[in-house]
């Protein structure tokens, strides 16, 4: 049984380790700089900030 706990413990640690590695990657790549640009990265010229994109059928303003 103790072997299982060790396996479980290692698995849990490895889950944490992947998170730490990914965080290190994000820091290195500058993903955590300029939050304003990050927040607006899902908008573009076609669907800009300020334009709602979902309406009930028949309810979209023309």
């Amino acid at each position, binding site marked *: *049984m103790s072997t*299982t*706990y060790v*396996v*479980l413990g290692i*698995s*849990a640690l490895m*889950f*944490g380790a*992947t*998170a*730490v590695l*990914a*965080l290190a990657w*994000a820091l290195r790549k500058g*993903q*955590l700089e300029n*939050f*304003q*640009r*990050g*927040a*607006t*990265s*899902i*908008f*573009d*010229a*076609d*669907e*800009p*900030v*300020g*334009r*709602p*994109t*979902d*309406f*009930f*059928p*028949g*309810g*979209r303003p*023309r």
Partner: protein
Amino acid sequence: MSLEPATTPADAARARLEMVERIRMNRERIAIDASTRLPVLAFFGSSVFWLIVGSVFALLASVKLHSPHFLDAQSWLTFGRVRPVHLNIVAYGWAAMAGVGALLWLMARLTRAELQYPRVLLVSCAIWNFAVAGGVIAILAGYSNSIEYLEFPAWVPPLLTVAYALVGLWTMIMFRDRREHHVYVSQWYLIAAAFWFPWLYTAVNMLLVIHPVLGVTQGTITWWYGHNVLGLWFTPIGLATVYYLLPKVLGRPIHSYYLSIVGFWSLALFYNWAGAHHLVGGPIPAWLVTTSVVGSMMMLIPVATTAINHHFTMVGNFRRLKYSPTLRFIVFGAMCYTLVSVQGSLESMRSINVPTHFTHFVVAHAHLGLYGFFSMVMFGGIYYIMPRLTGWEWASARLIQVHFWGTAAGIIIYFVPLTWGGLMQGLMLVNPKVAFIDIVKYTIPYLWIRTGSGILMTGGHTAFAVLFVMNLLHLGEKRDEPMLLAEPDEIEAGAEEPMLVGVGGEGI
């Protein structure tokens, strides 16, 4: 973008440049959406089918709790089989398959990369459906292995693993092919889900189903899985959907992007430790439980960041709930997320766990999480995604209203009375002076209410399924208003006219 008449040649040139850019982005978005069409529709279609089947089994199981002789003549319709069938269908059939549909579409949108070889994912979808259907029949026939959340017999997990692994692989391929430099917070959640879950599922099935470990260790592993399947699979996909669609529907960036990033990384670091709080008072090492209680309380950090963010993004926009079906569902879901998570952290504490564990309180909590939060967010996501894939607007605003009010009222009527009844049940259970049969009788009215709420939710699901099929088959009124897809006139104009040359000619 300005549509005002241009005053100077420079303004005119700028307006044309903006138009060109807009048309280019519009084309790109339509191509990206189209690349995901086949697999996403296959996964959504399957999920809606399983939602209906799962609802039927939910009602059966619920009725049997207050009327035990209802349909009890056949062994395959007994509670011990119907209940795990309900759980496995809604978890692996409805929720997970809807989640994969949303995941694939969101990843393509966020990476701005077209999905490559989408047909391979149809294989994943087919294997998935076969595995769930086979597993369900096996449980009904009495081959359940009676491990909660993992009742499917041993031949099912390898199939599901292949199906998950394909989805995970395709997610990584989209990430590799990404053309958007910034990894948006939703993308972090999706990558986490796609990467962690196949790993978790494989590891746990190896230890519990393929080569089962012995004794109480089984319980530890079961709840490590049972909790992580919510935290490392459903929660990330649900939150990714909210973090993308909430700003997108409103046309307003998330209130504090910084907080959303803090939220993701704290979830990534803490959630995995919380599973053993399901075993408070159980025969496992006390440090394991204590660690998970600490992990559970730490989860208040990501929950608080998410709650603050969602609320302040919505502030000033609550009237928009009237106009957008997607927004209604995801805001309802996000509110349930906050509620269920705070409740979950509190439940992990020993003093609260003692009266609430092994009562209907926990059942209500689980439904608030997987239904109030995850399922409602998925409904919202499907309302947004489907028309963009089928090129067809939803057939009826009224049916959407029926769906929303049926499910929203249903889950509230499910949660509130059952939570109260469960708490009372627990307080009586820890009181040795109360006879057990009195406690059983006390809970019966609450179980009737639960069946009533189940009928409401199933009614909502039926409206949803009708809408889904109508959309898929392009039934209903064709709307002539400029739909969600594009402004077709401008697109065609862009195709005929080499606009970039024209702009260059004006000396930009």
